[in-house]
């Protein structure tokens, strides 16, 4: 009797587990399908190649080129700066830091930073901008996004560099290379694909984040032209177009979301490609 119950329990739990996994994966399919079905009919070439014309938000002609270029400028600038900072932190952790304790404190700090909500980064960016007298601008948005992306990239790079065998570093030191030379000529070269993965991860996070650029980058119908002018961004384009009462404009919000999701999908495919490529090249 007891034996039978054990088998029933096993089967029941297995069923529940499979069902849960199906719900989790199903929600991904559900989200992507919803965006595709709603976004595709409203998508056209003008959306991608034009900036909003007069009366765009009432349903007249135009596109969201301002938001696409704005997002690329924001995320691109932030990713470039963040990459250098994160690389410095990761190299510091692996090549310069001699105390294990200090390294674990630094890792903990990065992990905590990773968890901080983007709205807080936005609010912080805003207070800093008030302090130095900067208005909502591309520069402000980039600063907020740098902070957002830094822990993600630094921790990812750190994980990749963990895979480099210490013998390789020791060999480099043994032939007389300095720590810096070892870092760039051995570690960075060994982990390059992993570093690109980190770069793409940060870029994807940066391009999709709305709460941090809401305060700091503002919004505009023009193409980005100067570091000190406001720029548009894709997530906010979705958000603002969704807020209008005109059905045509709301449909464009769906199409904008589709464009954004498409970009994220491409980035994540590239990330996978590079991380696989990376695993193949690491000497173990």
């Amino acid at each position, binding site marked *: 009797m007891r034996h039978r119950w*054990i*088998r029933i*329990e096993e089967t029941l*739990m*297995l069923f*529940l*587990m499979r069902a*849960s*996994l199906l*719900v*989790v*994966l199903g929600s*991904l399919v559900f*989200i992507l399908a*919803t*965006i595709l079905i*709603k976004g595709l009919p409203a998508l056209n070439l003008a959306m991608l190649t034009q900036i909003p014309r007069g009366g765009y938000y009432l349903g007249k002609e135009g596109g969201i080129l301002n938001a696409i270029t704005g997002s690329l400028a924001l995320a691109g600038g932030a990713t470039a700066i963040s990459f250098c900072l994160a690389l*410095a*932190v990761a190299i*510091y952790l692996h090549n*310069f830091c001699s105390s294990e304790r200090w390294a*674990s404190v*630094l890792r*903990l700090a990065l992990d*905590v*930073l*990773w*968890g*901080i*909500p*983007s*709205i*807080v*980064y*936005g*609010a*912080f960016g805003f*207070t800093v901008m008030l*302090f130095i007298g900067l208005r909502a601008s591309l520069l402000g948005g980039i600063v907020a996004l740098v902070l957002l992306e830094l822990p993600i990239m*630094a921790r990812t790079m750190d994980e990749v560099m963990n895979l480099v065998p210490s013998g390789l570093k020791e060999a480099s030191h043994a032939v007389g290379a*300095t720590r810096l*030379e070892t870092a760039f000529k051995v570690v960075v070269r060994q982990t390059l694909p992993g570093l690109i993965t980190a770069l793409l991860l940060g870029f*994807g996070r940066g391009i999709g*984040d*709305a*709460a941090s650029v*809401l*305060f700091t980058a503002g919004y505009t119908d023009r193409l980005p032209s100067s570091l000190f002018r406001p720029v548009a961004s894709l*997530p*906010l384009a*979705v958000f603002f177009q*969704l807020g209008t009462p005109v059905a045509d404009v709301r449909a464009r919000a*769906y199409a904008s*979301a589709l464009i*954004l999701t498409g970009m*994220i*999908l491409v*980035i*994540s495919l590239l990330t*996978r490609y590079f991380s696989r490529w990376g695993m193949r090249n690491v000497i173990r």
Partner: protein
Amino acid sequence: MILHRRLVKDRIAYYLMLAGAGLSIALVPLIALALAGRASTLLDQQSLGKLMFSVTWSPLKGEFGFLPFVVGTFWVTGLAMVIAVPLCMLSAIYIAEYAPNRLRASVKPLIDLLAGIPSVVYGLWGILTIVPFLRDYLIPRLSGLTRIGLLNAENPTGYSVLSGGIVLAVMVFPVIISTLDEVFTAVPHGIREASLALGASRWQTIKGVVLRRASPGIIAAIVFGFSRAIGETMAVMMVVGNVAQIPRSIFDAGYPLPALIANNYGEMMSIPMYDAALMTAALVLLLVVFLFTLGARLILMQAMRSV
């Protein structure tokens, strides 16, 4: 002479990198300090405790009671956890313990993909599917049916704390599942085999050995999900209704703290003390998330070390 130059270069690089590392450590205190500086004009007049437990929110009169927003935050986050935790536990156990390697290898990137979807897209999905589902199916069927206060369907719009909770639950799936997966795989194989060798079934082994061994990690994963959920802004703001009230039923509109900050940044400089109030909200959010993440990380580090 050449050797000297190389050493100088190494030294300079060391200081630059140390500065980068120092910045990472100093950033949290720096953010807290900057926000506190802005918030101080309000906090000098009223204590934080009083602000947190006051109900009236009318910025024009200078009254900033955060209670509705704090309660709204906990409603949405709590609902999200109630939905997400059982689903994530079951999925993660399946992925870590039962799934064949090929399935495991193909599920993980999909979970990562879920983590990469921008929050406005989640919000849009909520508006297009969850909100209409509540409005057109759930609420009409439930209204008048029950006397349970929690299920009172007085707000017919569908923009409710439940919508926020559902959207948020899906958003924290990847966070909780990937942490849990890490925790379960860290449980040594030997103790599983010992249990199986004694004649326990697979589920009995999981229930009695794996889950028990992994319990600190499981708590860490849940706290992790919670702290990620509490600060989520855009997606929640789009579906939760944004009415400054204390929600009494899961179908009532709520107004979480992050949504409050994001919605009012435009006018905050034109009303006295408004910016201080919003920065106080951001500061509270930062401190809560900081404590939770730090706690979860420390538990996780301890758990991984003992394994």
